[in-house]
Each structure stands twice: as structure tokens, then as C-alpha cells.
């Protein structure tokens, strides 16, 4: 993401230091990750120490300091999904993709994350890929779902 775009986002939030998290969220949503150069630009323009930005970028789960895969897999591990067997779904997906939550595979195809409650508890266990929700998913069904992605 180039500096001009970062500047635009910062100006949209009136260049206020308190809007730091909102600025980072916008960059993350648009760019799918937070490159170091973008963080340095934000630090400079908002006059916020880079150490604080670093803390925020690692404290909050929405942010990623590394590029994400083309397809983001979210598996809900909230309590309702947990009691309906989400752990088994997660384990199976980990085996199939070869990555653990928080990781991206080497082809930059899949990123895997756990989420704590998407609020679709009636559909538990829930796996969400690219915004599409797969409800009542059984471990044995995940392979077919993942196969459909390039």
C-alpha cells in the first residue's frame, strides 16, 4: 500500500492519534495485512511512537503483520460450537491444510484463524471461508469444501 493511500485514510479520520485503531483497521481491511512501511507512515503522521503501534498491531486479533492467503478460513471455537465438536473440525482442517491457526500456507492459498463466536450458534460447528458461512459442518465434509478453492 503506498504512502498516499495511507495518508488518505489518516486524513479521513482527521489525523487524530485516538483514531489509530480505526486507521489500522481500514488499512488491514483494504490491504489484508499491515506492512511495516505503512506502520512507519502512520507513526510519522499521527505522531504516535512506533512501539505503541507495534503493541496495538499485535494486541488485537484483527491485524496481521504478515500477508494473508487468498482465502481466509475462520473456524468458530466459541463455546456453543465447541460443545458441538468444533475442535474436531479444526483438527481436520489443520491436517488438510498443513497450517495452524494464525498461519498461512506457503502457496499463500489459505490462511487459518480461529474466531470466538460469529453469533451463528444455531449452525454450530461453523466454518467461514471468504465470508461464506458453512454451518453444521462435520470434519468429514471439510475436505470437499476446501477442494473447491484455487
Amino acid at each position: 500500500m503506498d504512502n498516499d493511500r495511507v495518508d488518505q485514510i489518516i486524513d479521513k479520520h482527521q489525523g487524530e492519534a485516538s483514531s489509530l485503531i480505526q486507521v489500522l483497521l481500514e488499512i488491514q481491511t483494504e490491504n489484508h495485512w499491515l506492512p511495516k512501511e505503512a506502520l512507519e507512515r502512520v507513526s510519522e503522521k499521527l505522531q504516535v511512537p512506533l512501539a505503541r503501534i507495534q503493541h496495538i498491531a499485535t494486541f488485537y486479533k484483527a491485524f496481521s503483520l504478515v500477508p494473508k492467503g487468498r482465502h481466509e478460513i475462520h473456524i468458530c471455537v466459541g463455546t456453543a460450537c465447541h460443545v458441538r465438536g468444533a475442535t474436531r473440525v479444526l483438527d481436520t482442517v489443520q491436517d488438510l491444510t498443513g497450517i495452524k491457526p494464525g498461519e498461512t500456507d506457503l502457496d499463500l492459498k489459505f490462511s487459518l484463524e480461529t474466531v470466538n463466536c460469529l453469533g451463528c450458534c444455531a449452525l454450530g460447528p461453523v466454518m467461514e471461508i471468504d465470508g461464506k458461512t458453512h454451518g453444521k459442518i462435520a470434519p468429514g465434509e471439510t475436505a470437499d469444501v476446501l477442494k473447491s478453492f484455487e
Partner: protein
Amino acid sequence: MPRINSPSELEKLRQGILSDRDPEKPCITLCSGSACHATGSGDVAASIEAEIEKQGLSAELDLRKTGCHGFCERGPIIVNHPEESCYFQIKPEDAPEIVSQAVKEKGIVERLLYTDPNTDEKIINESEIPFYKNQERLVFGSNGSIDPKSIDDYLAIGGYSALEKALSQMTPEQVLEEVKKSNLRGRGGGGFPAGRKWEESRNAPGDIKYVIVNADEGDPGAYMDRSLLEGNPHSVLEGLMIGAYAIGSHEGYIYVRQEYPLAVKNLAIALTQAEEYGFLGKNILGSDFNFNIIVHKGAGAFVCGESSALMTALEGRAGEPRPKYIHTAVKGVWDNPSVLNNVETWANVPLIINKGADWFTKIGTEKSKGTKIFSLVGKITNTGLVEVPMGMTLRDIIYEIGGGIPGGKKFKAVQTGGPSGGCIPENLLDLEVGFDELSKAGSMMGSGGMIVMDEDICMVDVARYFIDFLTDESCGKCVPCREGLRQMLKVLTNITEGKGNEGDIELLEELSEVAKEASLCALGTSAPNPFLSTVRYFRDEYEAHIKEKRCPALSCKELIAYHIDPDKCQACMICARKCPADAVDGGKKKIHIINQEKCTKCGTCFEVCPSRFSAVQKISGESVPPPIAEEKRIITRKSKEK
């Protein structure tokens, strides 16, 4: 849309809207909340719209996409007005029938009606369905009848009349008194009397005061606030405006999880509309009250649901809680008096102002007034959001409304209060929901998450699950929480893996005590609750794990093995084909054997083995029987002999 500048202009507008609407005109309301959306209500909406067009009924029939109706297990849901007939689990291909019947008097599509599981009778009206019948949906009810993106819909049901009354007929002190009199207590988990908090802020020194909506609903399994924000955002805004007026605040914040995109979107639309109509900005409804609202999205941290952490996050910093020796009502955001309340708490305020504190206090119990919305989830037949008066028993909620445990399984415990709460066993199901009852049993009502657990759930794993959650979500600042939970997780994980030792329970109790007494914030002080309540009521499970290396619920992966009973296996090949680890050895006439080295314990074989065979067993605490001899594995399938 010209700005509304006085109460009379508002009434004129409202009458105008109502007179334009014919209450007898057929209207299909379709639940379009996030969960129903995930089950395809978007496609259903598209097909109904197309069908209305196709049948030339655009002038006679309306489709309204509403927020969550609450009966999430059976979504997508349709309620036909004015008949109040209710259809469930709608698919796009049902559209033609639904549309044709909607314009006929008393027309119904029988196959889409609810069937009473006890009597097999079909029930037509929403209000007679057991799930809805026993609820009292004062706050949540409107979700099913308004389009959240339409402020006119909200006005048509009386929206913003409470704000009108407060600004034109009451002083801020009178509004405050009414809320105090109602005894409204926070619905986010703390249960602190809202009126008292408001008063503290009102009386605190300073000209800048903030009102904040805590929409960082983080308890896993709880989604009441999300559905309220998605389905009726104006009710929350109206409550916030009234609160701001009472306290003397001119700036409000809504801290909402970014994981709730539909809620964020509908809030933004509602705010734009409120501004346009003049409910926000300067001189609202012609009074001298000015008020603006800013939305701040959360970035994924459970701890930010804690009020001081939330305020720290609003300031643009990492959400670490602060000591609250001085209440945030006095020193909050940037050290200014700040009133923070939960979404549901704010949504109750317009009702209290409109109908009066006296009305409100007649609902509920002596110490817990009003209703509470719960998310009834887990091992329950009727998963969904339910709103009941305080004082209803857990038993009634789970059985009368929830329809009990599915699959013929036995109830084991209900977990309330999220990671700060605990598990309540069967013999305490007659406890009443409210702020104080459940705490005596070692749990708490919390924000409303109610997770039902059956005999297949391991209570030691439940404790481990919550501690695991908290080790990730803890801000990490203080030792009793960060280090205490670190050690607790290790011990609990060991226990679930068969590596527990004598003395583990005592160590966990000691760590719990220190966390409870010395943690910086409520996340830490309440973190031990899931462990403490499960060891209180299910100590035998802990002891089985530690002493016998056995999981009584047959759940902990390291302590169970899947085994195919050679006497029951009919070599149907289903499990062999479905096994994701290729761990089933067998053939069409060869009894299947699970290769224990390859087995990942995913449980697929157990799920797919036809129930008439039920050949797959789970074993714990004993060794897997050795495989039978090769010759003995050849069989002829019994069904072929019939």
C-alpha cells in the same frame, strides 16, 4: 427529508407514515439476521421478490426483510402479516407457494408450518409456538416486524416517542429519577444499577461527559447484542440519547466488534438517518440538547468488553484495563466522566421512559427487574435468542422454551455467564435467572449466554476450554491472571491428556484463589469460575481423569479410542470411505478395523455408522481389544440374507 424541529412535527410525521400504511395489507416478514443469512435467507428474499413481480402482486403484497426473529434453529423464518402465520426453514423454491398463499385470506402453506414435537400438530400462529409462547419479548419483539434499515418503520411502531417525551416533558433530573426508580441493572454482566451510575456521572465535576454503548459482546455463544444492533439499531440509539440528556453528555460512542459487519452496517445506516431526521446534532427536536454519536470498531480483543479496557481502546491504545478504585463514571475516557452500559441496557431505556418505572418494576423479581435476553445454544433442541422475565427458572427456559436436549441425550449442565461464569448441574435447574441467584451457585447470569451441555461433554475439558480462551484474551499486564492462567492451563491440559497427578486439583484451587483476590480486573478475578464450578459439581470427573486416566464423557482425545465392535460391524464400508485419515481397514465383506496409529479421533466413523448397526464404540480407561483374527473378519451382510 427536512429536519424535524419539534415534538409536534415528529407526531405529524409519525401520523403521516401510519396513514400511508394499511395494517391489513399482506406483508411477508423474512428474517435477515446474520444467522438466517448464513442459512440462505438472502436467496429466499431474492426469489420471493422475483415471484411477487412474476405474479404481478407488487401492489398487493410487501416483503419486509427484518432482523433476527430469535428461533435460530429453524431459520430462515417467515411471518405472514396480518395473519401472524409462521413458516420455518424456507428455501428459495418455496417462494411461489408462499407468495400465492400470502394474498389469500387465511392462506397457508401447511408443510412449512411448525410441528409440535409432542403432539405432531401443526401450529399456525407464531404466538402459539412453545418457543415463543413462554417468552416476554418486550425489548426483542420488534425485531420481527421492522426493517432495521428503515427509520420510518421504527417511527411507525412508536420509535423516538420516548426521546420526545424526555426532551419536551421531563427535565434531565426527572429522567434520571425514573431510571433510578426502575431499578434497571446493567445487562452486560455486571448488573450494576444503571441509575446510580448515571447519577455518579451527572454529579461528577467536568463539562465533558461521555455515554458509551458497550457492543463488544465477547462471551462466546452470546449474540443477543448483535441481533439487537442488526435488527433494531434505533432502539439502542434512542436509549443512548435519553441517557445523554439525563447525564449532561453531548458525545456518545458506540464500541462495536468489527466481527459483526452487518451490525456495523445497520448502525451506520441508522445513524445517518437519525442525523437526517434531526435526532442527532444541535437542538434536537427544538430543545437545547445537542448530541452526536461516533462509532468505534473493536479490533478483536475480548478484554475490551471490560469497561476500563474499552475506554482505553477508545483512546486509541491497547485495551489494557485500569484499576477502578476511582469509578470510570467519574474518570473514564480521557479522565472525563463516562457512563458505559451494555446494548440491551440502553434498549430498555425508551420502554422505561414511555411506560414508566412503575410498569417496569412489575416485571421480574424484587432485586432483578424487567426481562433478560438469553442466547440459548449448545445441546438444545430450540437454539435461539429468548427473552424472559427475570425470575423464570432455568428448567423452564431449557425445557419449556428450549425444547430440552436433542437426540435422546441426558442433560448434564448449563453454562451461564461466559468465561466469567460457571456450570450449573441438573439438581439446581430450579434456580431463577436474575442477578443474584446464579451467583450463589457459583456461576452468574452474565451477558446472557446460556450453553446447554449433555452427557457427551467433558466438564474438565470445559474448564480447560475457558482457561485456554482466557490465556489468549487476557491483556497480560498483571501476574495473577497472566501467570496464574498460564499454569492453570498447563495443569488442566495435562489432566485431559491423562498426565494429571495427585495434588493437581489443590494447585488449581490455590492458583484460583490468588487470581480471584489479586487480579487487576474482572477478567482475572472471574477467570477461575469455570474451573471452580466444574470441580464443585463434577469433581468425580476430575478424579477419573487423574486417577484412572479415564474420561467419563468419552470426549478427551488422548483418553479415548474408537473401536469397531466386530460382532456388530456389517462391513458396509461407509466409515472406511468417510474416514479423513484413511484409518479404517476393511472391505465389502470384511469386518472393519480401525488402525489406532492412524486414527485422529475425529469421530466421523462414530457419526456415520448406521444407527441400526451402531458398531463404533468409544472406549476410555481401558485398552482397545486386539483385532480379531483375519479369518474371522469375513462375513455376509445380514441384510442380504433377508
